[in-house]
């Protein structure tokens, strides 16, 4: 009977081809811990999609009802508190997972040919993840989110030439208001999911096409492998389960607070700072002189970050030594410097906020 169903499915879905592909797919064993973070990010994206759809059942994207609808979800909808808390925590874990994946791929030089396009789609996914964080933060329409968005969009407005226009588009007007909320909602539930899904499909297809990248130096000694299925899949499932456990603990023992409703006429709350994944940038702005190279200090900092991001995106084409399979210590040193800078600035933002 089972064989008959299998044959019926195989005739129509070519299941055997997939099974054969998985049976022969191999994953390097060395430094394998770093191979899990892509999967963890994927798992958390799935959690976000599921909890996000549930939140959509009650959420209302308007200034006079957004905060109230989230409060209703947390206080009156059965398990609403859990769904909202998991969504908020999973968002943060996902950003941490994507950053870890990004830097592990960078330091393992997994962007080497023929995986340049995989790297580019990954960079796009990192951008989408950060945009998800930025847009989703405003949706509960609370005081901190309102002012963080105001500051964040102000920084966008500092981008030379296109800044003011970009800020206008993001805000839907001169100021953060109802128009900003509705378009952030649109970005968060339509535009970004669409872009992320498309990029993710290409990213995953390329990962399957090229297989897992082997660590550099593999040519000097033979790299040990394990079968993707079931060995790697079971390990991945174990990691996903652990992440799920962490999510349950965080959501239950440290419920995500809602804060106070946004009041556009109130003064900005003290100690305001963006979400932790943007603090390295906001902290940098504090140390940049008011004028630099004939430009506003903030403009120079923005251009600097843009240049660094451009270098990161283009690293597969710039790192010719890695492309030849040789060690590229200069690129590694640059990555260590950047990561160190981000960590130090983030710590400073929390330890020395003023």
């Amino acid at each position, binding site marked *: 009977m089972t064989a008959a169903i299998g044959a019926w499915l195989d005739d129509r879905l070519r299941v055997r081809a997939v099974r054969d592909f998985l049976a022969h797919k191999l994953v390097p064993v060395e430094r394998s811990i770093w191979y899990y973070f892509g999967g963890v990010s994927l798992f958390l994206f799935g959690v976000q999609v599921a909890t996000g759809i549930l939140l959509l059942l009650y959420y209302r994207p308007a200034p006079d009802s957004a905060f109230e609808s989230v409060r209703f979800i947390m206080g009156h909808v059965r398990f609403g508190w*859990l769904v909202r808390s998991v969504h908020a925590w999973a968002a943060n874990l996902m950003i941490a997972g994507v950053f870890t994946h990004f830097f592990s791929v960078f330091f393992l030089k997994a962007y080497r040919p023929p995986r340049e396009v995989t790297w580019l789609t990954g960079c796009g996914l990192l951008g989408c993840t950060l945009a998800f964080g930025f847009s989703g933060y405003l949706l509960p329409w609370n005081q901190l989110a309102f002012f963080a968005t105001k500051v964040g969009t102000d920084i966008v407005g500092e981008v030379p030439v296109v800044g003011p226009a970009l800020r206008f588009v993001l805000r839907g007007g001169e100021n953060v208001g109802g128009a900003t909320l509705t378009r952030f909602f649109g970005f968060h539930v339509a535009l970004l999911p669409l872009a992320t899904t498309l990029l993710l499909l290409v990213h995953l297809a390329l990962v399957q096409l090229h297989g897992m990248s082997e660590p550099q130096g593999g040519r000097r000694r033979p790299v040990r492998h394990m079968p993707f299925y079931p060995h790697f899949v079971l390990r991945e499932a174990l990691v996903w389960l652990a992440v799920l456990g962490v999510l349950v603990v965080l959501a239950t023992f440290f419920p995500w607070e809602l804060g106070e409703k946004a009041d556009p006429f109130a003064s900005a709350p003290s100690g305001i700072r963006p979400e932790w994944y943007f603090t390295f940038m906001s902290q940098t702005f504090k140390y940049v002189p008011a004028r630099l190279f004939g430009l506003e200090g903030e403009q120079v900092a923005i251009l600097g970050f843009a240049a660094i991001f451009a270098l990161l995106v283009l690293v597969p084409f710039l790192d010719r030594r890695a492309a030849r399979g040789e060690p590229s210590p200069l690129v590694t040193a640059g990555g260590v410097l950047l990561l160190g800078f981000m960590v130090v600035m983030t710590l400073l933002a929390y330890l020395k906020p003023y």
Partner: protein
Amino acid sequence: MRPGAVIVAMVLLVAGTAPVRGEDSCVQCHKELPDPLGAPVAGMQRDVHATVGLSCADCHGGDPKDPGMSAMDAAKGFVGKPERGRIPEFCGRCHADEGYMRRFNPRLPVDQLATYWTSVHGQRLRQGDTAVATCVSCHGVHGILPASDASSPVYKMNVPETCGRCHADAQYMAAYHIPTNQLAQYQRSIHGQTLLVGRDPAAPACNDCHGNHGAFPPGARSVAAVCGQCHAFNKDLFLASPHHAAFDRLGLPECVTCHGNHLVVQTSDEMLGVGATAVCVSCHAPGSAGYAAAERMRLAVDRLKDAVAAAERTVARAAAAGMEVSDAEAALQSAREDLVKTRTQVHAFDPASLVKMADAGVQTATAAAHAGEEALVELRNRRWMALIPLSLIALVGALLYLKVRELS
């Protein structure tokens, strides 16, 4: 050489140097003179009158186009410096003229002179006492700023010091036989602290109770009306209370009897009841109906205060744990408002109505505390319930781990 002779010599010297024709000759000459004759020129640079285009001659008369000493000829309308006793009328020539004032500031009242004559200052001036305050005593002269200017002596925050320049000067006030501790007391009062330390312009300065141009001490029977300008509910309750008639009969100055006048301190529940700090016992002896009423009202207020504090602790604990307690906080806010209303209700001096109001507040506070407790119970339940998925995750994880080990 005497100072007067020096000034005369300087006047003659300046008079010899002809001012530029077409410019204001008053300014041209006086700016070269030493103080006090030169001071008005410097002061007028910021003066509100100068900012609307008025010059020396608009007040003092004379001909500013005449470059010689003849500019100050009485025939040209020169009136010079007015005598101190004539200053109110001197200023009132314009400030009591509605038609003239409309050209500059139609919103500015023109009743200052009329109300000044009703003030103690004005009445004494009419009796020949020129030591009393006139317009320039408070507003200054040559350098007069609008009351909205923070540098003006009549700017809200500066009024107490301005009044105190005379009223806190024991030597100056000796002839009037009135206290001189008002400023010191006011500075320690809740009004003074709020205005001068808290920089809150909503708090009253001297003129808010005494009037400004018509400054007059309120009589015993009008104290409630004065305080009631801001404390409207308290006034209404007091006027309808048995204390109103009793105080009037005894000649007690209404609100001031319990709260004091210049030294109005921050009220507290300690003022109510029969304790050592309660003001009620200064009139009501033990065993009297008033004594029992005071005790009953204090107990009711304390009961509500304790209920609100207990609810606040519970709701705060639930909120700190991340629970959604907006309903509890709304009930708590309502209970806090009940406490404010109950404290205000004291001024009706009617224990029955106060106890009823306090009991309603206690019920609201209890409901808030209950909602907070429910949130805490819910939090505990959630944490226990989380053990189920966590156990399942641990179980499946353990099985997966064993399988991975087996495959390895």
